[in-house]
């Protein structure tokens, strides 16, 4: 019999992967959207008080909490910690996953940082986000409702989520890096008549091609839906109705094949 925890995790990951592709079409902030999906799924699966992802940024070197979820997660967003401090710093510096429970028994344990988030946890699990041979950040989970500690199984599941997050970060960064690269090359090549807007137009035309499956109807639909973001609730209701009819029709079509 399939393990319900694992099935739930795999479903969550499939949703995350699909959303990653869709999000790239919707806006440039795909990384943020997908990372948010991952911490949302982590909180749900682990039944945890909070989950968050910190990414490494330079100048100065720091781990910046980019997304968080859960009842006690919000306080962490935007917070930066030095990579030389605390559990998150250790896991980032060594690439070695770690879980601590009974954190409060050490009165000095990372309390300053924890208090800045407005929540001092009793237990923490943290796992590195590894992209090829580089650690790019840390995924952490605070306080499961169901248990005062994290099991080996928890750590394994968390590693699956961390892999997904690392892949998302890479995808977003490849896209961003390609965009920046095109832009700098074009700016250098172009003479003074080329405006910033011209460069932008050429770059977006070039980088859009990085998304595969251009001709698949699903992606055309995604693009159309993306254009509908600003419409009113009434119009949105109408579009939803139409999509439901389309979905039902598609399902009938698939059965008849």
């Amino acid at each position, binding site marked *: 019999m399939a393990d319900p925890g694992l099935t739930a995790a795999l479903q969550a990951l499939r949703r995350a992967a699909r959303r990653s592709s869709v999000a790239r079409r919707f806006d440039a902030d795909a990384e943020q959207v997908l990372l948010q999906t991952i911490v949302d799924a982590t909180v749900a699966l682990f039944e945890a008080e909070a989950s968050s992802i910190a990414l490494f940024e330079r100048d100065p070197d720091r781990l910046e909490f980019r997304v968080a979820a859960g009842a006690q997660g919000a306080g962490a967003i935007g917070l930066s910690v030095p990579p030389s401090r605390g559990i998150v710093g*250790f896991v980032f510096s060594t690439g070695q996953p770690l879980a601590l429970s009974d954190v409060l028994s050490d009165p000095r344990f990372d309390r300053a940082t924890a208090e800045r988030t407005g929540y001092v946890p009793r237990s923490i699990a943290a796992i590195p986000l590894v992209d090829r041979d580089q650690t790019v950040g840390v995924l952490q989970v605070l306080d499961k409702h169901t248990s005062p500690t994290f099991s080996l199984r928890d750590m394994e599941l968390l590693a699956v989520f961390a892999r997904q997050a690392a892949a998302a970060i890479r995808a977003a960064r490849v896209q961003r890096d390609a965009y920046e690269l095109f832009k700098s090359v074009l700016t250098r090549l172009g003479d003074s008549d080329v405006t910033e807007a011209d460069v932008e137009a050429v770059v977006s035309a070039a980088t859009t091609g990085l998304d595969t499956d251009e001709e698949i109807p699903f992606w055309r639909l995604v693009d159309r839906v993306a254009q509908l973001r600003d419409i009113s609730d009434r119009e949105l209701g109408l579009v939803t109705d139409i999509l439901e009819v389309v979905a039902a029709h598609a399902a009938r079509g698939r059965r008849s094949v």
Partner: protein
Amino acid sequence: MTDPLLPAWSEPFAPEARERLIRSAALRQVDREWAWGGATGAGVKVAIIDSGVEGTHPVVAGRLVESVTVEIVDDEARVVPDEPIDMYGHATACAGIVVGLAPEVEIYSVRVLGADLRGKGAAFLAGLEWAVEHGVQAMNLSLSSKSERLFPFFHEVVDQAYFKNVALVCAVNNVPGLSFPSTFSSVFSVAAHAIADAETFFYNPSPPVEWGAWGVDVPIGWKDGGTTVATGNSFAAPHMCGLVARILSKHPGLTPFEVKTALAAIASDPSET
């Protein structure tokens, strides 16, 4: 006298030379009493390659002998004396577990982590080389490197350690992808089991991970004299390291290969746990 017709690598096995191959132990008779009965770790030097051991921490019980760290100046790694402080708490946790199992070991702290050494494989490598050169008999490495560029250098120093009879006890990293030296064949690669007993350990005949030791909800020493409870392969490795130190204190001169063999003989019986 050596036989000029015999290739050099075969000389140790020539009849007149074979006396030198006689070992102190008959492994078939190995049990825990033989392996470490009455052993305290006395006379064994253990290096903790990590975040720097906190010398005054109660779990270290005054067993810290020397502290060094690695400085990187103009891409040159240099080993220099260090304060006996811990940047995170992790090295102190590992040292505490080793001392808990082998109370009379001598601990050498080699700090390769910290504000200036973030993720620097070169520092890790330099620390490892230093410990091999400084005559420790065992090392605990609850960390690993993923730098492909450094792979051949790690391979070389791990071989040097093996040939100098230094037991390298390494926590494996569960994060996918190559990570070393924990995946090299000569080291003692360790992952965690959840049985709360420091002397319960398993031998896995299907490498790369050969040993399973307690690594779930382990009470540990942490930064600034503190304590906490931790889970991770990081805390399984020092359990194996402590047991290795015990064996080496009772049987000085055993090679890493012989220590592994003895450990395999006395490993916990999976059918009894």
